[in-house]
């Protein structure tokens, strides 16, 4: 089975994240890049599927050259090879244009199942899986907390407020996963050393069959018009308990329509 797992490098959530003042895109130099947390669950699920059904796990990432750190981690966890879509023309792509670029690349490299995290910690749109499936003309099985594959049949379970959905389809398909699905393994030291020798293919947009006019800032369908820092948290209200603290607390909650 040809399993492709899409991973994204995002700014470390533990550091201050910034947008650039010139083109209002993410300032990727301002923070250390780390693998998006949900992508680790996607890698783990891809590895579990490979261990159960055989095949090969290919890591696919779109990002600047420093995204190789993220590829390295996925390879160290156990993926077999990687494809890095990197091109200055991709800078500033929004979700729609990213899904176009990724779909073109997936058509180029081929797949039986595409696995990705259900959202990233930077843009947090959570749209890519659905957009990819639509562009590729294959079923989407999103927000999975369990994946079963039997031959060409694929079924996922999705936790909901009312119970769980069971979604079935046939391969090829796109699957997005949530953090309840598994416990990602640590890259082992041997895996880290072995990752050095694994093939990483670098593709520019031409090689991936991507039309430059449909990607990047110019090709994006959405635009960041303006941004501002979140206002500092306002001082809270202090109610001194003089025997009526309970009433004060209740009045506060009522004023916020909590009760």
């Amino acid at each position, binding site marked *: 089975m040809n399993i492709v797992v899409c991973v994204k490098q995002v700014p470390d959530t533990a550091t201050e994240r910034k947008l650039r003042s010139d083109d209002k895109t993410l300032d990727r130099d301002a923070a250390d890049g780390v693998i998006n947390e949900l992508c680790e669950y996607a890698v783990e699920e891809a590895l579990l599927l490979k261990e159960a059904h055989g095949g090969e796990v290919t890591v696919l990432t779109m990002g600047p050259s420093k995204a190789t750190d993220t590829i*390295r981690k996925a390879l160290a966890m156990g993926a077999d090879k990687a494809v890095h879509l990197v091109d200055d023309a991709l800078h500033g792509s929004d979700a729609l244009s990213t899904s176009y670029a990724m779909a073109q690349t997936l058509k180029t490299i081929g797949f039986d199942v595409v696995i990705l995290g259900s959202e990233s910690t930077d843009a947090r749109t959570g749209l890519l899986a659905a957009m990819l499936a639509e562009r590729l003309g294959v079923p989407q099985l999103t927000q999975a907390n369990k994946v079963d594959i039997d031959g060409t049949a694929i079924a996922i379970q999705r936790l909901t407020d009312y119970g769980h959905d069971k979604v079935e389809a046939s391969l090829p398909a796109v699957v997005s996963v949530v953090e309840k699905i598994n416990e990602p393994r*640590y890259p082992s030291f041997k895996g880290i*050393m072995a990752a050095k020798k694994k093939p990483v293919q670098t593709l520019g947009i031409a090689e991936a069959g991507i039309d430059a006019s449909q990607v990047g800032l110019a090709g994006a369908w959405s635009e960041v018009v303006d941004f501002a820092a979140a206002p500092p948290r306002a001082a809270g209200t202090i109610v001194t308990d003089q025997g009526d603290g309970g009433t004060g607390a209740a009045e506060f909650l009522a004023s916020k329509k909590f009760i």
Partner: protein
Amino acid sequence: MDDLLRIDDQLSDEQRLIRDTVKEFVADRILPDVADWFEEATFPVKELAPALGELGVLGMHLEGYGCAGLDAVSYGVACRELEAGDSGLRSFVSVQGSLAMFPIWKYGTDEQKEEWLPRMAAGDAIGCFGLTEPDHGSDPGGMRTHAKRDPSGDWILNGSKMWITNGSIADVAVVWAQTDEGVRGFVVPTDTPGFTAPEIHRKMSLRASVTSSLYFDDVRLPASAVLPGVKGLKGPLSCLSEARFGILWGVVGAARACLESAVDYSTSRTQFGKPIGAFQLTQEKLAWMAVGLGQSHLTALHLGQLKDAGTITPRQISFGKLANVRAALDIARQARSILGGNGITLEYPVIRHMNNLESVLTYEGTQEIHTLVLGEALTGLAAYR
């Protein structure tokens, strides 16, 4: 907390990934519970050893037999991150990899290697190292433990060892004993009749680490138990050089954890209407702690590069062990003073690191012995003989 000198920029991509992996493991699996282990004087070896084995930490710098074959700087960085968790954790790893696996790997027979190294790398078998004795610490050449051949060719081992990390939880002990041919190393399965290893209790340091005595009462070992590759004290001393290299990196992690804790505390703790970090007295402490940390870190990196180049000498390792442990202990003590009363509780990592470092100052060559090694290096005059 920013690394002022950006020392990790010197690391390779793989070394950074090793750093991040160990750091994540320590954050997930060690830091949430280590204060409890310390308080209860326990080290959950059954859970941690296989997890550390899976990660590849055990015997990480050895080649083959399931080991990762890391370079020296990677080994150091991993020790740094382990000891940022707790010196007891790093001690467990040092003893397993550098004191128990290393002599088997370096001086053992193929059979000894095949029997023990893969299981030890996986964390399925635990090792310990018996050199120090109740009456012979800095002076191991005076050891009383001895092994004699009986007419059948077996070795009969008698004597005792003390301050043995992992002793009571070990499956195998590498024991150094006097023989008619000088000091020899023996691979001793701990279920051999006559071997006992009671735990040493009431320690106030390295509480999240098992420390034991070893007793050998007519322990009968086959001729194949001896490590054939080395005779004399250079055998155990070469193992100590490996482990001391891990220590001089590890304590950088403990010191960093103390400085981080002190910086956090000093910027959130308010006295006289401002954070105590805004007072010049506190800033002076923090600045010197950062200087000590940076210097010891640079020493560790330099020695790592020498070890990778294959040119490091025992004297250089003594320099690092002496300088870095002392720096770490000074940093821990300063951090303790910045945290005030909170500095003595296990709610913060500082007193745990500080107490641990008191052991680290003494074990694997006391600060006095390493001082004399440097004295001899400078003067050509050996003060301890």
